[in-house]
């Protein structure tokens, strides 16, 4: 018997899709800033300030992305149990470690059944922990590179100390590399969502639009979730 | 007669030491040594060949 359960609250879904859109925009504009492959002669409708517009877009979208991260951080404390920050550190609890082992076994074809969960599985949570870490590095390197130009600005005051230890070219390199790691993650994320959705049949794919997942009544009872 | 060492030799670029053996008012033997080493060849190894000129230009700035 399947039950319809409201799992992903509005802030979770909203920040998910804002993150998707902003990472796409930031990657496109960022790649152009790093390697401007579009030739502009100055007579096109988008000239004569094309790079300027691309950079401006990159900075504006970066702030939107950060706003989304801040909202999600708040919701990791204020939201329901499936939105909690605890999900990022599954190795802290005994059930988490078991779920982690089950998920790894499933992905390496050592175990037929995918782990039974309501939110996301422990391995996914651990991966998102790494992604949050990459987000932190990404925003830090971004602000450091933005702030270095204006040493009296707030971003330099917050991030300028890094230049005592690391050169801006190294930060730039890290900023580029993190983009590729996030793209690699996105590939994995979409693939795994397809796989888990088709194997578990819990409506995972539509849940990130609607918020509802379809969970077995047995599992709900086992997890102690009140019937809605 | 003594061995005379002049170090540093000035009015040249780089670091030079000259030692001379003087016997009866005549120089009978002399040694010169450059007293500075940087290892340009070792630094250049494995780099983009197009960068080589930027490095080798810095062997001597005179």
């Amino acid at each position, binding site marked *: 018997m399947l039950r319809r359960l409201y799992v992903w609250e509005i802030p979770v879904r909203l920040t998910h899709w804002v993150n998707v859109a902003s990472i796409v925009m930031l990657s496109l504009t960022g790649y152009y800033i790093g390697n401007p492959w579009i030739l502009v002669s100055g007579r096109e409708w988008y000239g004569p300030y094309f790079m300027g517009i691309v950079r401006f877009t990159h900075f504006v979208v970066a702030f939107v992305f950060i706003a989304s991260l801040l909202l999600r951080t708040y919701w990791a404390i204020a939201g329901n149990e499936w939105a909690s920050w605890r999900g990022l550190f599954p190795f802290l609890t005994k059930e988490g470690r078991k779920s982690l082992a089950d998920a790894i076994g499933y992905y390496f074809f050592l175990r037929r059944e995918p782990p039974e969960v309501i939110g996301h599985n422990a391995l996914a949570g651990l991966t998102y922990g790494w992604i949050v870490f990459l987000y932190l590095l990404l925003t830090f390197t971004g602000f450091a590179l933005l702030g270095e130009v204006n040493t009296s600005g707030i971003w330099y005051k917050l991030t300028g100390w890094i230049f005592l230890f690391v050169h801006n070219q190294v930060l730039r390199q890290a900023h580029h590399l993190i983009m590729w790691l996030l793209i690699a993650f996105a*590939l994995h994320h979409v693939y795994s969502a397809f796989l888990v959705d088709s194997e578990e049949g819990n409506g995972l794919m539509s849940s990130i639009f609607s918020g509802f997942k379809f969970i077995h009544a047995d599992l709900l009872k086992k997890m102690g979730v009140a019937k809605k | 007669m003594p061995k005379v060492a002049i170090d540093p030799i000035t009015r040249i670029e780089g670091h030079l030491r000259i030692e001379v053996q003087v016997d009866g008012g005549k120089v009978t033997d002399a040694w010169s040594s450059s007293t500075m080493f940087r290892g340009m060849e070792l630094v250049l190894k494995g780099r983009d060949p*197009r960068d080589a000129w930027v490095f080798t230009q810095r062997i*001597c700035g005179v």
Partner: protein
Amino acid sequence: MIEFASGLENALALKGISRREFLKFCSAMAAALALPPRYVPRIEAALATAPRPPVVWLEFQDCCGDSESFLRASRPSAVDIVLDTLSVNYHETIMAPAGKAAEKSLYDTVEQSKGKYLVVIEGSIPTKDGGVYCTIGGKTALDIANRVCKNAAATITVGACAFFGGWPSASPNPTGAMGVGEAVPGLTQINLPGCPHNVVNLTATVVHFLTFGALPATDQLGRPLFAYGKRIHDNCERRAHYDAGQFVEDWGDAGHRDGWCLYKMGCKGPATFHNCPVVRWNDGTSWPVGAGHGCVGCSEPDFWDTMSPFYRRLPNVPGFGVEVNADQVGAGIVGGVAAVFAAHGILSAIRARRQPLAKHTAESGDAKG
């Protein structure tokens, strides 16, 4: 005969430098230091009356390029004024005494003017194998620097080598070369990096020291803000082409002939803080980017490793060889991940067909029932 206000001006007049040229120099220095015009008379008075501080110029693992940059300044008065204002007691390349006599001039200054003289250092200090890679008069560079710098009023490092070690310290750093700040910590030190440094900045730093009795304000790496406070990219004459998205794609192409931005040719202007676009070189004739070649970032720490390859935007990723930068490594990772998950997808599809999940069949039963 015109009456001159001071001995300095008299001395300059003998060299054919007029009062007008002297005042022009004072104005140029005020401008270089970003001071308002009312400071010009103060600079003038200081240069004319300040006591001549003794200066010793030490060369370690150097190429003499910074001495050349200093001596070849042909703005009629700069070097004359500085050499007449300062008393340069030791500079191996231009001094008359050699050997023991040269060493005597150095250590006499250290003893007699303890705490009052300036040290200018050119070249890095080797620290490997007991510092044998640079010795002068049988003493290692490190010993000399320790003795001379610790008794000085201030230490001015000129050039990239004395700042962070320069190319001798580039990977794999065969001689353990270091900048002065790292080899002899705790000095009153100001850094004028560049490869070579720009004589305008050295002159302005000295003028600041003579006028205000202190070194100019610096950034956190010890570089004076008047010279290293602004990014090359932000003062570049090609910046408008960057903002427009107009880039040189190849040496000698139409964009290169039209003076477009050198960003894609590996210009490190966006990563480098220096006043080259403003003060330029050879009496303001031109500068590297003006001449059509990208900036190599010579005033930044470790630039031989972090700014190279000089014809690429990003440095190499350590461990991946000469040709690979972060974007290529990243694209490789994305490709690898895609391949792994494509394989995983195929295997999963095979497994789902061969070994269907029990609950799927059960659920279809539910749906029917």
